């Protein structure tokens, strides 16, 4: 069995009394904050809910870290918490739906920040098309069921293997495959007209 790459750090956290975001836990947080936020953002579909779900994820991590026994990979455990927190947050948000006050401006739109980091110069028209396409893909992901959404995000956004997804979501490998296959069918229905419009013009 492979050694968990995070084992040393996690054990360091477990050895010290919990005292907020410092020491070993801070290093763990720095290592996972983008991954957790990314998963939460793609599942919830907006920055505000993603922040809340991420906060909840790290809160749970902080409280339960002492009980973690390395029965699965630490990263799988973190992903499981993040996925559950995001789905739960999304469900709660849907039950008390209010129009979001968040403005999709250049600073909150993720791809905009990606553009700023991009060294290559991108033509404005191309960038606009890409933003539009990305928004439509995100919207298609948001219309999937929570389970399918989680599997698509872990597979294609976080690039986890089927085995890692199976461990993170605590489902069998066969379930991962069938669920991914169904997610593909759903995305195919949603995205074919969109991709036709963007890809073929």
């Amino acid at each position: 069995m492979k050694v968990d790459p995070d084992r040393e750090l996690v054990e360091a956290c477990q050895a010290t009394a919990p005292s907020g975001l410092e020491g070993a836990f801070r290093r763990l947080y720095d290592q996972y904050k983008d991954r957790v936020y990314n998963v939460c953002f793609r599942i919830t579909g907006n920055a505000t809910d993603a922040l809340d779900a991420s906060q909840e994820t790290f809160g749970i991590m902080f409280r339960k870290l002492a009980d973690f026994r390395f029965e699965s990979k630490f990263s799988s455990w973190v992903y499981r918490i993040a996925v559950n927190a995001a789905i739960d947050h999304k469900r709660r948000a849907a039950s008390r739906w209010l129009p979001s006050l968040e403005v999709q401006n250049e600073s909150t739109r993720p791809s905009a920040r990606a553009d700023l980091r991009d060294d290559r110069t991108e033509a404005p028209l191309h960038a606009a098309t890409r933003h539009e396409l990305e928004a439509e893909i995100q919207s298609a992901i948001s219309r999937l069921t929570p389970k399918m959404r989680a599997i698509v995000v872990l597979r294609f956004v976080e690039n986890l293997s089927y085995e890692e997804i199976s461990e993170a979501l605590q489902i069998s490998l066969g379930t991962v495959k069938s669920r991914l296959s169904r997610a593909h069918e759903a995305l195919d229905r949603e995205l074919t007209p969109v991709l036709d419009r963007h890809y073929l013009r």
Partner: protein
Amino acid sequence: MSLERAPQDRGQDCNAARFALLQRAERRVEEAKAGTDGSIDDSGSAQLRDAYASSLDAHLSRCAACRRDLARAEVRIAFLRDLARVEAPAEMDGAIVAALQAGARQSRAIRALTALTPFSAPDALARRIAVSRTPAVLDRLVGEDLVDPAKALASRYAGRLERLRAPADLEHRLGSAGPRPATRVLTTVLLAAGLVLVLGSLVLTQVLRPRHMGTETAGTDSAQARSGTQAADRGPLLIVEHVDSVRSLDPVAADVLSGFTGGWVDAQRIAREKL
């Protein structure tokens, strides 16, 4: 290349190849991103990680719909993989620190509370309980609660509800409420008609009776005519006179008739006189 969707139910071979096809699409996207050769008819078979590579190739070579599916899946996966990585915002650090500190404070408080040595009840309390007697009403209330909690609660609170007095307005409304308008109008009309009939009968009786008596006595005994008592003793004498027109009526009778008809007879008479 067309991304047009193929029909979903295409046969057993296509359904069996569906997942292998997705894996193939994923692998090709990975290869393309890594800069390796990812063409469909490369040497690929030997290097393929999916177990059904050769049978998939064979199926793809004869199934145009699955080739289209593969192309579409590649494009879709490539776009999904290209979704921008989102960085955690700067404010997340502050939010997490605050949440963890709050959590830590809560944990410390819980630990401190659970660490407190539990007090044991003093012996005096036990003695007091032993000698104290609960009031009978408390026993009854507790008994009711145990038998039927919902009923006990309802009766207890229903008994406390304020008793309301009927408002004065209700009495006023009931006093002014009579029969419905249509009934009231009908009653009024019938009463008026009855009254008119009675009055008319009385007037006719009073008007006609002395005149007939006078007519009877004109050519007979003058003594009888003066006293009139004998005639009255013989009973009322009614003489019916036929007239051809209203103008021939006795003036008193004409006035009565005019009153009954609401002045119509007078109007007719005036109209004739003008002509």
